């Protein structure tokens, strides 16, 4: 079974068929990769879950929509200036007779590029009403420092 089969499916995250147009629209992206060495995208690793990123001074806040996922099924970590959100939404009992099925299930992984290195000790993650909020602080050694002139 390929990794794709494990991705969350159904709901708003249906897989799109590949078309040549995708590459045409990704043209600017290709330029970013060539000249900046990054994809220029804020997030990667699949469309689910949707995230918003807020930045104010030395604080970055990432909010993700993860309804139906308990804290025990979520894993948040920092890897090379990126925030990785992984988790799994469990299936409801298969034995029931479904009249309508729109909600997705399965495992997911989302990678969010952070604007600067963050302090691994002060990360704060809160799960409330199906929204995960991760608050990160800029690392001390990259904060601007005032130099005294003697």
């Amino acid at each position, binding site marked *: 079974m390929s990794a794709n089969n494990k991705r969350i499916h159904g709901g708003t995250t249906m897989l799109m068929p590949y078309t040549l147009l995708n590459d045409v629209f990704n043209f600017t992206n290709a330029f970013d990769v060539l000249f900046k060495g990054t994809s220029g995208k804020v997030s990667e690793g699949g469309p689910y879950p949707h*995230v918003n990123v807020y930045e104010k001074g030395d604080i970055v806040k990432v909010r993700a929509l993860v309804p139906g996922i308990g804290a025990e099924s979520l894993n948040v970590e920092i890897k090379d200036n990126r925030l990785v959100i992984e988790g799994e939404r469990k299936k409801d009992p298969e034995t029931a007779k479904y009249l309508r099925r729109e909600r997705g299930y399965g495992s997911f992984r989302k990678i969010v590029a952070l604007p600067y290195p963050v302090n691994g000790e002060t990360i704060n993650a809160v799960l409330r009403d*199906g929204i995960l909020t991760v608050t990160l602080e800029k690392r001390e050694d990259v904060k601007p420092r005032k130099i005294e002139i003697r």
Partner: protein
Amino acid sequence: MNTERENVYNNERENSRCVITPGTDIFETEGEYVIKADVPGLQKENVDITIDNGVLELKGKIDVENETHDLRAEEFRLHDYYRRFTVGDDIDTGAVKAHMENGVLTLVLPKKEEVKPRKIEVLAH
């Protein structure tokens, strides 16, 4: 002072009252129907569910403003939730239960006693 982006956003918000149709699963067991809807960001006290004339209406009010000020990347916005379903007359409307957990609303609609499957004993003569 508002930025251009915020002005555009605020106008958009005033002109169109956006409503989200929550993704929903409905399944049936022997004794009940279960409706599960994804409503992230919705608080328990802002949920309004009515069943009237065979129509179940689900309303959820989001009372927090979408933060726009320090936004760097936006993949979602929160809006009020609304969805309606037609329900059969085999439901015991007085016994419907609802609960919220992790941004998922679960409604349990028990079937009326007389429509539940009943096992008939075969009597030996």
